């Protein structure tokens, strides 16, 4: 595929994105002039050593954070300078997030956690929509193998189960892009393998674009494409298909 074709396919694109943090006296540059395309339907793995800016890039692409400079294009529209309201709307309706620490709400059951993003969709006819969302949430829990755990609070679930609930929650609003930040970082090998398989299956069945920040070599190998970040920059040789990649971190 040519570079021009790749650009046309991009659902998400960062152009010249930089991110700096300042404490008033010194400036810490986390990302420096990053250009990256995420193509519709692909699974893109972002690897690199700790502290190189992987999570920061995911937050910027996921519109959780704003870049110091550069543009973030989602479906062709620049959201780098968009209002907090607009970015929140996109995060809720177009994106799904899975975090290393699961970040489930402890007071809610697994089903309620999955329903949470759906509840945030402002609709007048909540009852009608709620019924549909509930069915979908239950179906997603079934899909991740937790239908029988729907009424359980996170404290009664294992790490792997919590992460599967988090994945179901990320998918409830039928997102265009699924952002996963170290989704297997807190899990043992066997559970990590189950999560790999689940993410792979979801990509095939739902066709959701995935941006996965990971140290996990197996998970990165499963991706369509891998990019590596070093010192806040994308390494030039990266972006090749995973099976041709040589430099991903383990």
């Amino acid at each position, binding site marked *: 595929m040519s570079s021009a074709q790749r650009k046309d396919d991009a659902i998400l694109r960062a152009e010249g994105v930089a991110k700096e943090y300042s404490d008033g006296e010194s400036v810490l540059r986390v990302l420096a002039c990053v250009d990256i395309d995420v193509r519709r339907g692909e699974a893109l793995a972002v690897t690199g050593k700790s502290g190189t800016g992987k999570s920061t890039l995911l*937050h910027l692409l*996921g519109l*959780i*954070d704003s870049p110091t400079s550069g543009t973030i294009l989602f479906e062709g529209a620049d959201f780098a300078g968009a209002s*907090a*309201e607009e970015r*929140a*709307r996109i*995060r*809720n*309706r177009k994106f799904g*997030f899975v*975090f290393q*620490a699961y*970040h489930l*709400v*402890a*007071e*809610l059951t697994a089903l*309620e956690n999955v329903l*949470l*993003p759906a*509840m*945030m969709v402002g609709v007048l006819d*909540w009852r009608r929509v709620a019924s549909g969302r509930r069915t979908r949430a239950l179906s997603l829990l079934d899909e991740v193998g937790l239908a029988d755990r729907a009424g359980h609070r996170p404290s009664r679930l294992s790490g792997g189960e919590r992460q599967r609930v988090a994945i179901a*929650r990320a998918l409830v609003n039928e997102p265009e892009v699924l952002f996963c930040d170290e989704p297997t970082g807190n899990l043992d090998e066997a559970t990590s393998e189950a999560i790999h398989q689940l993410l792979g299956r979801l990509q095939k069945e739902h066709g959701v674009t995935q941006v996965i920040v990971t140290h996990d070599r197996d998970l990165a190998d499963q991706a369509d494409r891998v990019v590596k970040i070093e010192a806040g920059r994308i390494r030039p040789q990266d972006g090749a298909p995973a099976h041709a990649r040589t430099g991903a971190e383990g």
Partner: protein
Amino acid sequence: MYRLFIAWRYLWSRLVSYVGVGLLALAVALFIVVMAVMEGMGEHLREGIRRYSAHVEVLAPAGPGISDWRELSETISKVDHVTGVTPYVAGVGTAESPAYRFACGVRGIDLGVERKEQRGLATYLEGKTFETNDGSGLPGALVGNRVEDRMDIVQGELVRLSVQRMDDADQTSRANFVITDGFKTDSLWLDNNMFISLEYAQKLFGTGDRVTGLGVWLDDIGRAHEVKRAIQRTLLDLDEEEWRLFDLLSSEPQSIETLAWRARIGPDRARELMARLQLRGAAREIARKPGHYVETTEPQVKTWAEQQPDTFSAIAHEAAIMRVILVIVIGFVSVLILCILWLMVEQKVRDIGILAALGARAGGVVSIFVLDGLFVGVVGTVIGMGLGTFVAWQVNIVVEIVDSIFRIDILPEEYFYGAVVVPHRILGSDLVLISVVAIACSVLASVPAALSAASADPIESLRHE
């Protein structure tokens, strides 16, 4: 929708929230019970005063008293709603028995008229008399229970009464009386009196044929003010225009120009009318403020409420101060609610980040914690209102328990017009006041915590483990 859901779940997942709700409920209940008892006591006191005080009183100016009281009584009894007029001579004196001396009220009354006209006292005067049958030829006296107790006297014994004369304040009159009977009402003030016949009181106080006041009794106590004005107009014999000016003057001292402007008449006409009012003793010019007038009616006419201004003012002020104190208590509770919600925000930093990542707006995060404040306020207020109303309703059981535990008499019967139970009265306005204050304080207390939550950086929050 999710705001309500999350707020509700957050609130009830923490023990400290229950503490906040409980304390608010206790404060609300305390407010209701205290105000209900205060209102009940106040009303009981007012009712007691109403029962024994004439509804309107015509009082003599300083000096020897009202001379034409028989004609005056006749005139007043023709005023609408007046059912009776009771003349009296009242003052203070010292009663002496062989063993004791006691300062008490001395009231000269016409027993026949009192029995006929006065509702409250009539019950206690039934069958009583000033007539003595011991052959001593001394006048009789009825003694109030408190005087009787303090002086340790019984029926048939002699009492020497000393009073200051009204026709010559430097002189003291003394006379012996035989106790013909005693009386006990549920008014401490009334039981502190000695009743003697009107004629002997006139002799004792040196008022001649005069009386010191006329008690006016009405068919409807609610019309006391209206009847007072009607009596004033009758006594002053004012025409329509003069009465209008007098009426305007009765609210506060005013200048002739103000009066003229308020009466919509020219200043010259106002001066002319004021001169006529002055001639009748209805108004006088204030010496230190020439051109300013004040109402002076002779004799003075006062309603039952105006006769006890200090008591009613004290009751009203006590209730107002108590309301303020209890509202401050609720203020303190809301500071605690603020701390609870702040603590909740601190504990929920990670959740705030995830909610933001999932698409919650800053306003949504603010609403979650404001809703928590609202829930604490509403639930605490509802529980407090239920608890407070129940305790106020059953306050006598509480008093009995306290009495039996601490062996004290919280409510001595004699001090509260014979109240054998704690009177209580819950005002709707108090319920509204406490609900609004408690819920508003609770919501306001949640605002700093909510704003702190909304200002949390989602990135920092997500890093928070």
